[in-house]
């Protein structure tokens, strides 16, 4: 039996098509994938992300634990800041990619992928031996609702009853406590997974329906409920990795071109040991054999996860990790791991699309960048 979001009845009332996703019954679409995708690029979309895991880490050693357990320099985060980071295995493989929020000097919230939440929780608990911390899985108590797109700032501002003066100046990857209309407390972050400006609202599960309806009421014609299908094409255009596709236990952050999330420290500002350090130093110093690239084609048939990438002579040089017809760009796009020597933008490759080689060109990520 799949788990249900606290917003399940809202999805049913809106006529959503529900699918199983990481053990959750979640909306894949409401009206149509393309209309939902376009709404986020041109106005605003509303997403239920309540399947995501929220793990709180509190205590005097919260910084010390997270600096040991994660690859980022968590102690350098300011209050109310968000940080994209990863938890790696001792061999350097990615266990999950995470967004960490610093809610207080000794209080962080780690947002994990739904499929990995139990693993991340278990790893944090195992790594916490000897640290003075309390680790709490808050996933069932927290609903996560995203408002994404160029109209999102106006909509979120309209939802807020108090502290609204912060929102228009809230920087990207920062967060603040607000009170929404209806006296609902929310932690609002300027973060997202769409390549647009946008916000993610952490609210109590009991308040989720009221917040969802408030967003729809304030957004009016400017906001469109969006499902997982649009979320996937939006993040793909924006070059954002999806765990299980671009990131796995057998890829390091360097393979995915995300070595920057690892803080090894400098002579002037050294950093202590963290899980995976030694293997990641080796990975840093050795050029990866295959690297993550973008793909663009001018045909009609799209690359899809698992399809082989070949050179023009048919020799296998890589594998597609994600792909779709891009609603914004109007042609097939994808991401793939390819041999390093074929990773330069403009390199011509063939994608084995169900037995026929479709020509595509390697392209730098992201494939879509919003106008500033």
């Amino acid at each position, binding site marked *: 039996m799949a788990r249900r979001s606290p917003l399940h009845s809202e999805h049913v009332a809106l006529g959503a*098509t529900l699918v199983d996703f990481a053990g959750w019954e979640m909306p894949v*679409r409401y009206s149509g*994938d*393309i*209309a939902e995708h376009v709404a986020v690029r041109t106005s605003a979309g509303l997403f239920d992300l309540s399947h995501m895991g929220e793990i709180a880490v509190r205590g005097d050693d919260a910084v010390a634990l997270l600096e040991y357990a994660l690859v980022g320099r968590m102690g350098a985060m300011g209050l109310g800041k968000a940080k994209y980071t990863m938890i790696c295995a001792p061999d350097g493989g990615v266990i999950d990619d995470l967004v960490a929020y610093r809610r207080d000097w000794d209080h962080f919230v780690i947002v994990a992928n739904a499929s990995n939440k139990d693993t991340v929780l278990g790893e944090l608990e195992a790594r916490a031996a000897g640290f003075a911390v309390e680790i709490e899985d808050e996933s069932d108590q927290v609903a996560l609702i995203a408002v994404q797109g160029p109209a999102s700032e106006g909509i979120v501002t309209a939802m807020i009853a108090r502290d609204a003066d912060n929102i228009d100046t809230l920087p990207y990857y920062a967060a603040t406590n607000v009170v929404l209309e209806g006296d609902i407390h929310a932690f609002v972050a300027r973060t997202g997974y769409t390549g647009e400006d946008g916000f993610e609202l952490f609210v109590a599960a009991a308040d989720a329906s009221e917040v969802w309806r408030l967003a729809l009421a304030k957004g009016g014609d400017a906001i469109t409920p969006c499902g997982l299908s649009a979320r*996937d*094409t939006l993040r793909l255009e924006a070059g954002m990795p999806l765990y299980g596709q671009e990131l796995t236990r057998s890829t390091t952050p360097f393979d995915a071109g995300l070595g920057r999330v690892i803080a090894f420290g400098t002579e002037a500002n050294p950093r202590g040991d963290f899980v995976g350090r030694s293997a990641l130093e080796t990975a840093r110093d050795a050029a990866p054999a295959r690297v993550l690239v973008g793909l663009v084609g001018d045909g009609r048939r*799209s690359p899809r996860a698992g399809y082989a990438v070949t050179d023009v002579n048919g020799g296998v040089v890589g594998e597609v990790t994600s792909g779709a*017809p891009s*609603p914004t760009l109007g042609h097939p796009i994808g991401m793939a791991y390819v041999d390093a020597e074929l990773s330069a933008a403009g390199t011509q490759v063939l994608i084995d699309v169900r037995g026929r080689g479709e020509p595509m060109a390697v392209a730098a990520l992201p494939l879509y960048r919003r106008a500033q």
Partner: protein
Amino acid sequence: MGNVPGDLRYSAEHEWVDGELAVGGEVTIGITEHAADALGDIVYVEAPGVGATVTAGEVCGELESTKAVSELYSPVTGTVTAINDELASEPESINKDPFGTGWIFKVAITEEPAGLLEASAYEGLTA
């Protein structure tokens, strides 16, 4: 669960067939509303060419949406007599009107059709 017109026959691969189900008969073929809903917005259709031979239960084309790609199976054996050219510019017809303007191809049957389902049986399959 989508609409399932009672006057059509269905394959387990979610195609519908309309017309005379006998050798020499010509039938129109498309995919069901259930299949179109599962795929999401269809952006590309690859149908067999006019004159091609198709075999019941075998792949004869593909349907691509933003979310996924799906193979198109022929529900009957025969020769393709027409394809819906409108789908090249308006593949979304399959989502909007799967049993009407979203038809995909027509076949002149050369082998007695077998194993096609009545609407009630197809509904049972997708329930």
